[in-house]
């Protein structure tokens, strides 16, 4: 069903390049993944990959501060970046006749970001990031849920223990030397995937990539991930935490430790998440929201981490006078109910996944990001085209085995938010 064309190439300096042609609309997506994220941060420097992402917009040798945004917006493009546990991505979608502008901008900061770095820029972006932490984590009801869940699921020495945004203290401690070290270590062509998708000529585009990126020297091999990734497949117990916070309604989050996103057969996790929590015919909606009316909303999804482990997340928000214990028990009852699944639930999960993937892939920006992801995680961008087939191959037996293995009481972290903190 999905037949996204992709030509794979590589430069001598190690940069992997994917080119996917689509002449339907005169736009092109340029998407760059650096294989560095919060998992590469050492203690005392949490949040640094994200702070660094901000620094990448402060200019490079040939591009003054803010000029990157200015030029792309001027060209009629949209752009952004994001930091995650396993990668930092930079992306723009613009009218296709501006392709070289995007290549020039990305190459200039990949190769020559340091000459433009100043203490003032670091200070300014440090404040912006602190504001971001306040706005999304500290000032938002339930804002710190992921920080707490990660601390329950992973031991302190594990690279996924700390949140991507980092701590206020560590954000404050980063200095210019850290910036330079980080850049030289991780922002190198041999640690990156560049994907171009849209209205382009593949040969011209590849030549342009060589022209702009070819001179950037390869870096040293990437150092090992700090901390310890050697953890058991499951947590070995149920861990619970209850927080009284300034929240309007009680909410329960439940997380299970799973194999990593790159493991064989991990699609079962995605299928389980869909059966449990996607759509109004999902088990959580049907049982907790519609029938029992103890939750006003419910969710379940696979948290796709690349290395050593990933997570299944599920949960529900209760009504004002709800008993959180009741909410928790209801969630666990549904989890336990996954010991048996029906064929039509599998069909529904596959149908929804297929429609969802096709919807997403309509946008060149999303398509490019997916290709980059499959390249970084699997060294196979074309894997996108067989994704739905893998879901179709998940049988009832595989789902039930997965549930039996990973969703039991020996592998749960439960976080409950109770209204009542603050005033």
């Amino acid at each position: 069903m999905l037949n996204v064309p992709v030509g794979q190439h590589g430069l001598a300096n190690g940069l992997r390049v994917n080119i996917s042609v689509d002449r339907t609309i005169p736009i092109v997506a340029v998407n760059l993944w650096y294989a560095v994220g919060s998992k590469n941060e050492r203690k005392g420097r949490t949040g640094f990959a994200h702070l660094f992402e901000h620094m990448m917009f402060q200019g490079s040798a040939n591009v003054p501060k803010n000029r990157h945004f200015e030029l792309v917006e001027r060209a009629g493009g949209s752009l952004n970046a994001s930091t995650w546990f396993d990668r930092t991505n930079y992306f723009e979608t613009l009218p296709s006749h501006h392709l070289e502008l995007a290549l020039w901008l990305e190459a200039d900061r990949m190769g020559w970001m340091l000459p433009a770095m100043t203490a003032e820029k670091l200070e300014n972006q440090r404040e912006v990031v602190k504001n971001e932490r306040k706005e999304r984590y500290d000032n938002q009801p339930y804002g710190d849920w992921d920080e707490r869940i990660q601390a329950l699921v992973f031991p302190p020495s594990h690279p996924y223990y700390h949140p991507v945004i980092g701590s206020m203290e560590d954000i404050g401690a980063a200095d210019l030397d850290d910036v330079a070290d980080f850049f030289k270590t991780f922002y190198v062509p041999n640690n990156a995937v560049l994907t171009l998708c849209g209205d382009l000529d593949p040969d011209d585009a590849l030549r342009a990539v060589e022209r702009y990126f070819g001179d950037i020297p390869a870096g040293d091999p990437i150092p090992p991930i700090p901390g310890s990734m050697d953890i058991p497949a499951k947590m070995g117990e149920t861990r619970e935490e209850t927080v009284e916070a300034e929240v309007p309604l009680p909410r329960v989050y439940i997380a299970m430790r799973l194999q990593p996103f790159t493991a064989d057969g991990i699609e079962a996790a995605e299928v389980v998440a869909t059966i449990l929590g996607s759509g109004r015919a999902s088990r959580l909606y049907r049982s907790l929201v519609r029938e029992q009316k103890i939750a006003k909303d419910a969710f379940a999804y696979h948290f796709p981490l690349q290395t050593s482990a990933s997570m299944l997340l599920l949960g529900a928000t209760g009504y004002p006078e709800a008993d959180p214990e009741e909410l928790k028990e209801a969630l666990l009852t549904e989890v336990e109910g996954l010991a048996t699944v029906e064929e039509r639930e599998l069909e529904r999960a596959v149908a929804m996944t297929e429609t969802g993937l096709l919807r997403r892939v309509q946008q060149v920006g999303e398509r490019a990001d997916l290709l980059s992801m499959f390249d970084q995680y699997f060294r196979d961008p074309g894997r996108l085209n067989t994704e739905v087939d893998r879901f179709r191959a998940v049988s009832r037996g595989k789902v039930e085995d997965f549930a039996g293995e990973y969703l039991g009481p020996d592998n749960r972290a439960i976080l409950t938010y109770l209204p009542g903190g603050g005033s």
Partner: protein
Amino acid sequence: MSAPRGFRRDQVPAPGPVRPFSFPELHAFQTSNGLRVRVARMSRLPLVTIGLILDAGEGLLPVREAGWAALTGSSLEGGTRRRTGPELAEALEGIGARISLSTGWDATSVTLTCMAERLPAAMSLLAEAAMEPAFPEDEVQRLRDQKLATIRQRRMDPRSLANDSSARFIYAEDCPYGRPLGGLPSSVEAFGVEEARSHSRRRYCPNTAGLILVGDLELPEVEAMADEVFGPWQPRSVQGDGFAAPSNLEGGRVAVVDRPGAVQSEIRIGQVGVPRSTSLFFPLKVFNAVLGGAFTSRLMLNLREKQGFTYGVRSGFSFRRQAGPFTISTAVATEVTAPAVQEAMSELTHLLEGGPTEEEASRARDFIAGVFPLRFETTGQVASRLGELFVYDLPEDFFSTYRDRIREVTPETAIDAGRTVLDPSRMVVTVVGDAEKVRGPLEELPFGPVEVATPFY
């Protein structure tokens, strides 16, 4: 490998030749019961989006019925005369389609996206949901309780609270735009099965509705399908068009909504704007882009990049059938609340005084015109665009002439439009934050008396 001779890394690369963009061809027809249908083919991927637009927006309702349009719309998931709610969900999701029910100020939309081969089944189910709702008692009650819980959540989320409060302080109490879109606890509590039935009877009919179909489809087939599926829907005469023009409160003041201990303040600076039908639409778009509609806007470059006050600041007009608000929005650390308000007002005032430079106007035009095709990538996006044509009665060539009209805007027409509509001395500053900390500094600003407002919901 080295770059070819003549290659200059210190120069912005020149663009290539512009590539043409043509809009999906639009076909319009009407079924015998008056349902207006618009169809656009997009066959790159085997998907179709169906959107049924009902003339049932919140803007039509008096304050005691606030939220009823939204509640009636969401109650469609409760089931039909032929299927229960769970059965309806199973039937749709079993073929990979998820129905989305949404109500705004000007319409209620029932939409879904499905694989192209599932179109007949999906259309049939969507039509059934809209034409034959059952409104079962327990489902309606549940959705009402859900809405009450959501209102509670909004009250505690600083961002939503700021949006709702700002509207409340700009518009008069009896004006629909002064209340949250989803309603107030009192009006929501009064909603039940009878209200749902009555509202849908009044507003859900083919002769005031629009059907949008976008995607991998064949025109004669979908025409026949629409006729067959929606044919049985009875037309009705519909009364009432909502309010004529919004009434608003006195501006030139500052309202603080207290969140003791808040580490950040959510700031809104706003006033009544203009309706969607304004002749100033394009110059205002350009004016707004320069002020706060892009990253390289005056507000962003000042409050974020220069001062480090915030992670983001935006400005914008909410164009509705009547005049929705113009608002500047941002979130800043508590300690810099007053300086941030000062800087934002200062940027607005300066722009109204001096106008955009030729460079700024040019950049804004290029940005708006340039990003335009990005809003036509998906069947869902194109369906939304066609929905806008329908709801706001825009000319068929609105989108094909959009970029030309943006390019016609000059710094002069942009500033004229801004000056016609905006008046900083009439604006209301709303701050959701720690009143104890922010009140004093706000009182030192010249933007009017500062009042700590009592919660209104």
